[in-house]
């Protein structure tokens, strides 16, 4: 039977599904019987979600010229001979 301290140590791997089969079974047994450790796991899962939610709502605007400068640099480096079809073909009906 895992101790709560051991659960604390492997809880992060557990929520990622990174534990081996035996450790996972031991973990589930412990969580079925321990309210404190069940809370810990739910809180870690919530923390993971909220970090993702906050970051997902963060949009940093790029300078409008940034992309065109990059494309120009790319073209200069990998300029293909004319007529080689580097642009996707235009749609033809």
């Amino acid at each position: 039977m895992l101790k709560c301290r051991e659960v604390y140590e492997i809880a992060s791997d557990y929520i990622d599904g990174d534990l081996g089969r035996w450790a996972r079974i031991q973990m589930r047994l412990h969580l079925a019987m321990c309210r404190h450790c069940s809370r810990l796991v739910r809180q870690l899962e919530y923390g993971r979600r909220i970090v993702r939610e906050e970051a997902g709502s963060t949009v940093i605007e790029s300078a409008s010229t940034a992309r065109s400068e990059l494309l120009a640099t790319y073209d200069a480096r990998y300029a293909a001979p004319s007529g080689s079809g580097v642009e996707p073909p235009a749609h033809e009906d």
Partner: protein
Amino acid sequence: MLEEQDELVVRLRSGDRHAFRQLVDALHPRLLRFVNRLCPPPSVAEEVVQDTWHVVIDRLHTFRGDSRLSTWIFQIATHRARTRAVREGRYAATLLESWDHADPGGDGGLSRFDSRGRWVAPPAGWPPDDPEASAMHQQALARISEVIDQLPEAQRAVVLLRDVEGLDTREVSTILGLSPANVRVLLHRGRHRVRSELEAVWTGRESC
């Protein structure tokens, strides 16, 4: 998947600007979001990411396909961001040094247990069943940005790459030049710190 990547790399090397544009569209916002957390403000992050793309363009022929292309690009971005931040005196020269200096005692979690491994200070009873529906969730969301920014650098990088970018341990290990075991320890510490700070929001107590 790997065949798709091989095909993409061939297209990029042959001057297919449509492929390059798609790659930039897909990765640029993610790189900017990540680098801004390592090396703010956004104007500096933008410079670092632009610099990253120039390196990608220059070194595309050296990409050997040992990792995913996106992992390789994140690795370059991380290196450029750290180089910039170290030059400005913001970070220690290596991530491991930064780890040791910023976090000598780990996450302090073991003090929560007695000598028999039982909880001394168990987690409080939060969150409710549907935390996202609670008004408290908005408070937690408002606080979390600051919490992430206050994590020691190595923990912050690992938490962002794993939990925001969704990369696996091996990819994060490649990007940061750390062992998979180190990545797991850093993730453990970072997540427990986040949990502790969220507990302070949800319970109105000081974090510990």
